[in-house]
């Protein structure tokens, strides 16, 4: 029996556990101090909004873990003895292992603003963050959210669903325009405001002001405004949860450095998910990608590798999705916020319906590099095929219905895109 210990039961750790435990010669121990069960972190917002119950967060039935004899421990690992292959738990137990998988995930990034340690300064990452927010909710009339990214807008939607006034401080000139183009970001800005959020662009947090009892009373912004509030949500990104491992021999940069087989510098120790930092990356991909599906894929790869089928983790074509209030966002391939000298964007927008399609392509042969979609759904398989085969833009546009993934009857915009393309592209790109 090979004993596999996994620290962290997020999607990376849980996926690895399930895939390893299917092999009879491995016993798996899954350790987490957050929850005794694996849950969909991505859906925390829907629990707060009353769309689903906390019990609906579990992607697998409880019986599955017993079926595969996966031992689950709800405790904190305080120390790892890499030499003797032991884990020390907070409650005093020691767990021996043969193979260790670190899947410790992320922690919210924070900056030492004055007042950051006040009561009712919150984050949105752990289940406990949600519990705290729920606990504070009756006391919140006005909330301030700091950080214009994916979690910030989720938090804004959550608080608006509970009828809280929300001020959203975004450092950039438009929401998330470090990833979206200004044209796309402006659409989102407008939609955020339509949902009753006081969106303040080009604005940073200066200070969180004490209300006199150790709780949040107001924030002061970089533009000098004092905004009274009872809650501050800090959503300025995440960083690998590796601080507690820094004193060890583990090679840590920003995250735990791993090779293509997700091995760390210490033998029989692997790292997957948000906490792992890849030594080698594919074009347009980053060494740390705190995304749901990459964690899931790493979990599958490491499970195969450990159980005797060495499988390198290869970043394929990038894709991702999100939802900004009511606007769905999907992205496939490489779509930077601004075109490079060698590339250009085809942009179609239907602002009243919050639809936007941006296809990034090379100027020389018109081969597409990536697609950004807002308010419309595209078929991943088809998009990947076009990008991988360097399909020229005109061909992609003419075949666009192949990629339509909206509900039946909701794809009449396709013709608008094709007509707009005919009118625009050939007038601006005629030889």
């Amino acid at each position, binding site marked *: 029996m090979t004993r596999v210990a996994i620290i962290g039961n997020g999607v990376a750790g849980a996926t690895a556990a399930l895939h390893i435990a299917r092999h009879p010669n491995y016993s798996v121990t899954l350790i987490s101090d957050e929850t005794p069960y694996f849950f969909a972190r991505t859906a925390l917002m829907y629990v707060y909004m009353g769309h689903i119950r906390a019990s609906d967060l579990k*992607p697998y039935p409880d019986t599955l873990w017993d079926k595969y004899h996966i031992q689950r421990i709800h405790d904190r690992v305080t120390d790892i003895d890499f030499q003797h292959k032991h884990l020390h738990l907070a409650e005093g137990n020691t767990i021996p292992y043969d193979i260790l998988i670190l899947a410790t995930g992320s922690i919210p990034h924070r900056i030492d603003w004055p007042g950051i340690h006040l009561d009712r300064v919150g984050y949105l990452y752990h289940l406990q963050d949600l519990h705290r927010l729920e606990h504070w909710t009756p006391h919140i009339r006005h909330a301030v959210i700091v950080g214009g990214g994916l979690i910030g807008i989720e938090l804004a939607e959550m608080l608006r669903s509970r009828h809280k006034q929300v001020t959203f401080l975004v450092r950039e000139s438009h929401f998330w325009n470090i990833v979206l183009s200004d044209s796309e970001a402006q659409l989102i800005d407008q939609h955020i405001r*339509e949902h009753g959020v006081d969106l303040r662009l080009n604005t940073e947090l200066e200070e969180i002001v004490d209300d006199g009892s150790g709780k949040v009373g107001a924030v002061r912004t970089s533009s000098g405004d004092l905004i009274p509030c009872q809650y501050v949500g800090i959503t300025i990104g995440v960083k690998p949860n590796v601080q507690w491992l820094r004193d060890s021999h583990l090679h840590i940069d920003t995250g735990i450095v791993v090779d293509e087989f997700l091995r760390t510098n210490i033998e029989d120790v692997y790292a997957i998910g948000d906490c792992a930092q890849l030594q080698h990356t594919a074009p347009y991909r980053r060494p740390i990608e705190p995304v749901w599906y990459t964690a899931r894929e790493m979990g599958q790869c490491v499970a195969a590798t450990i159980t005797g089928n060495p499988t390198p983790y290869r970043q394929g074509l990038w894709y991702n999705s999100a939802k900004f209030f009511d606007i*769905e966002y999907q992205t496939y391939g490489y779509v930077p916020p601004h075109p490079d000298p060698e590339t250009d964007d085809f942009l179609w927008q239907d602002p009243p319906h919050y639809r936007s399609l941006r296809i990034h392509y090379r100027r020389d042969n018109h081969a597409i590099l990536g697609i950004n979609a807002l308010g419309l*759904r595209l078929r991943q398989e088809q998009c990947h095929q076009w990008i991988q085969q360097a399909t020229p833009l005109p061909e992609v546009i003419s075949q666009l219905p192949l990629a339509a993934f909206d*509900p039946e009857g909701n794809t009449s915009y396709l013709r608008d895109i094709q007509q707009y393309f005919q009118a625009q592209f050939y007038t601006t790109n005629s030889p």
Partner: protein
Amino acid sequence: MAPTHTSYRYKIVRHIADGIIFLLLAMLALRWMDIRVLPDTLSSWGIPLAFVLAMALRAWAQYAHRPPGIHNNGVWFRPLTSRKWPALTLSLLLTSFYVVLYFYPQYLGLGSDGAPNRGLIAMFDPLSKALSGNPASQWFVYGVFYTTAILGFGIKFLMKYRHNRYQRWRTLSVMFFQLGFAFLLPELLMALNKPYYNFATFWPLHYYYFDQWHVDQLLRAGLLGKWMFFWGLAMIFILSPYLTYRFGKRWFCSWVCGCGGLAETAGDPFRHLSSKSLRAWQIERYLIHSILVVAVAMTIGVIESYLRTGQYWLTPRSFVVLSLLVVTLPSAWLLFTQREQLARDARILLAAVALLFSIVLVNHLFSPNGEIFFVDAGTVRKWYGFFIGSIFSGVIGVGFYPIMGSRVWCRFGCPLAAILGIQQKFFSRFRITVNGGQCISCGNCSVYCEMGIDVRDYAQRGKNIVRASCVGCGICAAVCPRGVLRLENGPSYKNKA
């Protein structure tokens, strides 16, 4: 800043609409106690119409000020939609209504032995007379309530999902079929002295279709009657298999059917209450297919019992042989062509067919004339009508909306859904496609599946959803925050997983 001022105005309108609805219900309650507020000639059509208009006003006030999109905010917080006491109260009211409707219609005011109607039923006499020329019955009143509910809550649904054309078309379709085909047309046929006939339903949901009196009534009603009879047969054997092959069972269950229509409109606020447990799925499969076997065996028995009188050109023996062929040939074909996929299901199917075979044969060979399985034919039909037609589809099916979700009948009881489900699973181009690896396991799809399908379990593994029970309402795809699910009619019925 937050548009508090505007939403305050909408709130006032919503309260006004609620007030109107309350007044209308109060008028019905008073009229039930024989206290007339308005003359019946006005209220028999005025109250239903006013209800639909008030619902429209309410829906406007509830949704118009929000940007279009999915807003299931607070569904699990509100007592009415999370099985708290208001849900239990509503459930009790609905079940009581059904018990009275089915078993004690005199308490609604139905006059017996030629006595005129009183109370609630008398109130609808003017409308009934205007449509069919007859005084109202409890079924007419029920039809008015039913249609009003589908129209009123249908408008609410249209507002709620106004961003989604699939949802809009589907809802307009069920509203149209309920008002036109299930309610108005049969009444008008009666006015023209033709048989009461709903073209939008068919056996075995239309469970008395093959009863002797019904067949006789149709066959004696001239060309139209014969056409109705053959329309019913064509629906069973030609149209529905084709449409289910082409589009899945959704063409009926969530576009045409009245039971589905009520579930999708009035039942929509309760859709998330369906159980997603594995046990519920097991109960569902055994229960619905058992009811199908009973329904088919009973129908064959009923037909055989009146064929034995010798008044018809078909002999009992040739009928039994024919019907057993109709059951076995498609099953054998299924077992042969899809043997790889079937595995465990094959044994269940074989067992069901064998059971049916033996019931029908034993009955054919040993039951005396006028009896089905040694019990009086009338009694068998009565008990089926009691348990399946009344208790299951009505009292539990609708009465338990606030407890078990909106599709209890469709999921556990409807024999037609069972047939269409078998076709859908093995011989249909319909499937729900999963979009690559975009699923984030959030679980909204599973929670809002009214049929209790754990959609997420498929979506997170990237597996297409091919399930017999799926009625193709499309809500899983609508609530998915990442655009992962799509209802599709594929190019072929094979290899769709």
